[in-house]
């Protein structure tokens, strides 16, 4: 028996287009974002802002800081350093929203060491010089002038108002000034 309503035939090109569209979607699905970490994992370490850094690449071989005779490089495991330094004066753990254990801050006399966690290991993320009782291996301590810093580190700094920024092999060395007086020295993982 014939159907009372004659069905309209879908042109072959439309069928092909629909199939092609589906195929394209499946191919896109297969390739997009395959190399990205799941978003349910903690974000890459950052200065409690979640900014992406070069964390997890390799230890810095750039600027280092020497504290109580121990040479400290950015992005190296912190455990051996802490073992040598002994108990900190203060310890502070700062979870970021939704994820935990991103920032751990160990305070020693004149120095703060901030770490990030990758797997089961904590790595040095920031070294912050807190007062003028300690100085960098190049002889700079808080209170120095921009000229003194340039004399010690060279003229290749990225300069912005109140700041001189030096980069060297995986380490970002930041000098912050207030009224031309050095008020902060920070060794850190470079922000990408």
């Amino acid at each position, binding site marked *: 028996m014939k159907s009372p309503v004659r069905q309209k035939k879908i042109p072959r090109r439309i069928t092909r287009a629909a199939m092609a569209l589906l195929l394209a979607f499946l191919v896109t699905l297969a390739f997009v974002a395959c190399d*990205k970490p*799941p978003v349910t994992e903690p*974000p890459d370490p950052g200065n409690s802002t*979640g900014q992406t850094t070069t964390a997890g690449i390799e230890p810095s071989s750039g600027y280092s800081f020497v504290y109580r005779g121990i040479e400290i490089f950015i992005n190296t495991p912190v455990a051996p350093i802490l073992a040598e330094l002994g108990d900190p004066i203060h310890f502070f*753990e*700062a979870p970021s929203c939704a994820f*935990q254990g991103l920032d751990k801050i160990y*305070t020693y006399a004149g120095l703060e060491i901030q770490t990030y966690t990758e797997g089961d290991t904590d790595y040095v993320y920031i070294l912050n010089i807190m007062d003028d009782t300690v100085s960098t291996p190049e002889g700079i301590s808080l209170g120095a002038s921009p000229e003194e810093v340039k004399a010690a580190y060279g003229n290749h700094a990225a300069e912005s108002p109140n700041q001189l920024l030096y980069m060297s092999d995986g380490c970002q060395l930041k000098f912050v*000034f207030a009224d031309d007086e050095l*008020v902060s020295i920070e060794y850190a993982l470079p922000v990408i």
Partner: protein
Amino acid sequence: MKRKKPLIIILLVILTIAFLALLQALLMPKFQTQLLEGGLIADYYQEQNKDHDVIFIGDCEVYEDFSPITLWEQYGITSYIRGSAQQLIWHSYYILEDTLRYETPDVVVFNILSMKYDEPQNEAYNRMALDAMPLSGTKLRAIKASMTEGEEWLSYIFPLLRYHSRWHELSAEDFEFLFRRNPVSHNGYLMRVDVKPVTSIPTPRPLPDYQFSDICYEYLDKITDLCRTNDVRLILIKAPSIYPYWYDQWDQQMVDYAARNDLLYINTLQHLEEIGIDYDTDTYDAGLHMNLSGAEKMSVYFGRILAEEYGLADRRGDDLLAARWNEKAAAYYRQQADQYLELETYGYLRAFRYQSD
């Protein structure tokens, strides 16, 4: 047979789409038993009665530091917290714009910590803010404003493009909550009863420049204008978190902005005694966020301002509304009791223990 071919093709297309939709539902993170913060935005769209006197927008400093149940029980004020983890100011603006599609509150409260972030930070937080938002022009603009480098715009429209690689980490949760979800919050408030006192505060690091960026001011202006256009009063607030450090220079900029725009700005860090915050008992992570006790104190303090200075009416006399809120309060106290029991049993709250043991 030839006549049936188009039907078969249409059926095939429908089945493929249905299969992909099912796959997407399965593979998207559920945020029901872990990383509960990821479920906050979705909670709002599940809320049946979207008629609130007050809407909070902002980051963890709103969804951890205010309790809508306390605001209701103490003042009869209805409120909802549209917070998400590290909600940046453009997220807040678009979340507010989206909220105004559903309701027009009397007051919007914006926590201004996000003024310190001048660029998209991390995909994980974008996802938590945007994935659950229904598709709309607002969502499309929010995606554009929020994406970090390397993110695919299309993957926010079809999340399967982003989450398809989750197949190997699927857990029982993904199957249990495939077709349903439970609210993770109490009108946007994420409860935690545990206590971790403040023992030390990291030294604030001097900054080369304390000026908030133009982009943040642009979005703050947009929030202010949006509220004004919709006849909503805007309050700016800084929650009593001691870290990240809130610099005096930042505070002054907010004082000036509020004065220029005739807004109320409250830095609760300057009212700790009046609020009654005790950092030995009112925080669960050494001063970054309030626990239940801290959030309730904050709500008692802030509710008084809303009631007395903003004249928000006590709606506890509305029987229908009261019945709804009594139900919400019952769930709130149930979770409170459950969390205390969990603390007694395990020594910690399982839902907030993220580290692999």
